[in-house]
């Protein structure tokens, strides 16, 4: 899969895109042969045409940029606070016994269900969407950070303590690397939840004008199925790319970290 040679990469990209090509062709054929109506299901060529006009007019870029801006702020906050709270819960037994059950109940609440509360308390604009993005990522990251640190080998920890490592150094050089696999799981889950919360939040917040979720939602008022389908494809591919790009990058980081640990 992650072969380093360019040919293997090119081959896997072609293999990845092939099914989309086949489905697209069958779909186009079905529409051209009038097996389904154009209003219900516009053909891929119409969708691609729409994609082209919206791209050259800059509309699509504007939507994507506002979405990514909200995602970046909300997600970075979720990562920062999630890791801090997760570490705090893992390192203080009392805190964990007090808050872990509440946390596991709050995780089960669909992030989108917080949106009505946020709309009431924070208004109908950007702040609501960004907070939803934050909440989406925060719980998953907190929970997995906590679990990861809990599972760190106690002997390893004691050894580090005996050698005089404590405080910030203990955290950065021992705890974090040892719990990294679980933390990264949290980060991956978190970006998925944040992405979904972003799209949902944009759709439901009335004063938000731009954003990829808003684009799909607004298409409803003109029954513009082509824009809806295009938006869904973009949402899917972006979510996939975020996961792949972030995951790949983090994997490389972990591999490097592991290598460093082995060398020592």
């Amino acid at each position: 899969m992650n072969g380093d040679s360019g040919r293997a990469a090119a081959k896997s990209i072609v293999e990845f895109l092939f099914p989309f090509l086949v489905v697209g062709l069958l779909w186009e054929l079905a529409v051209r042969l009038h097996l389904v109506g154009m209003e219900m299901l516009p053909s891929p060529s119409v969708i691609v045409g729409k994609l082209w006009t919206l791209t050259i007019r800059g509309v699509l870029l504007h939507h994507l940029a506002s979405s990514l801006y909200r995602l970046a702020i909300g997600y970075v906050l979720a990562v920062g606070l999630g890791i801090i709270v997760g570490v705090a819960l893992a390192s203080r037994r009392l805190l964990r016994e007090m808050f872990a059950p509440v946390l596991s109940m709050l995780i089960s609440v669909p992030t989108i269900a917080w949106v009505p509360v946020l709309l009431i308390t924070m208004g109908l604009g950007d702040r609501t969407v960004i907070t939803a993005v934050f909440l989406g990522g925060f719980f998953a990251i907190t929970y997995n950070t906590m679990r990861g640190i809990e599972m760190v080998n106690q002997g390893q920890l004691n050894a580090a303590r005996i050698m005089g490592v404590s405080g910030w150094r203990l955290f950065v050089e021992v705890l974090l690397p040892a719990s990294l696999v679980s933390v990264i799981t949290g980060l991956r889950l978190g970006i998925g939840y944040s992405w979904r919360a972003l799209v949902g939040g944009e759709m439901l917040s009335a004063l938000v004008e731009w954003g990829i979720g808003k684009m799909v939602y607004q298409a409803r008022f003109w029954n513009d199925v082509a824009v809806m389908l295009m938006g869904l494809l973009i949402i899917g591919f972006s979510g996939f790319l975020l996961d792949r790009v972030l995951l790949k990058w983090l994997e490389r980081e972990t591999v490097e970290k592991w290598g460093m640990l082995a060398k020592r």
Partner: protein
Amino acid sequence: MGVSWRKHKSSRATGSRWWLPALPVALFLAGWQLLAGVNLINPSLFPPPTEIASELAELYTSGLPTRSLLIGHVTATLSRLLVASVIGILSGTLAGALMGISSRLYRFFDPLITVLMPVPGIAMAPLFIVWLGFGDPTIIALGSIAAFFPLAYNTAAGVRSIDPQLVRAARMMEAGKGTLLFDVYLPWAAGYVLVGVKLGLARCWRTIIAVEFIAAASWGLGYMIWDAAEYLRAGVVYGGIFLLIIIYFVIEKGLVNTLEKFTVERWGMVQR
């Protein structure tokens, strides 16, 4: 064995210091009640817990002789969840099993699933409203799709992990295609399928609540919460979210327990 360990630990923790997790919740609620009572936080945005409770009670009693409003919303959502998750789980397991058996099918459908999976159900709602209209058909269709993906994905992964010796042995004993699928592949993948069921159910639940926000005709917990938010009835919004927490907690605990029994039974069967 992992399961028994977890049970043991949690029962010990709740046995001796059960009040610890209740403490912050109680303090939080008491503080909220107090602050809202003296108007330090806006009680129309953050109605005190007692008012939330009385709003819920009022929703329960309204229309009671014939049909309680609250019960109506809850049953609407739960029946959608039941239908959608059954459709999604069955079709997802079947698709996953086929993808697991044939690597050609896997290579074809895997990219499609990876791209469609991160699309939230609520984003598909406008499309499905155009296709199927407001109400049950749209909500159930999107709930089924939400449950479908984790099952297809996990079942395929489980079936692909099968020991080829087993398949060869079954083939030698002249097992037909159906026998092979239901008696060899699926039992092997049962653990994966169960994980898929848990994930699928959670996704189905989330999607149904979210889609009810914008596509429900007039019933459902999601509709109830959304409608209350539009009319700034904060008490009903908080009460609704509280109900969401409780209901899903019950579903998950009930489901996990039955699933555990199911796996233990499977184990027994295998050993016998």
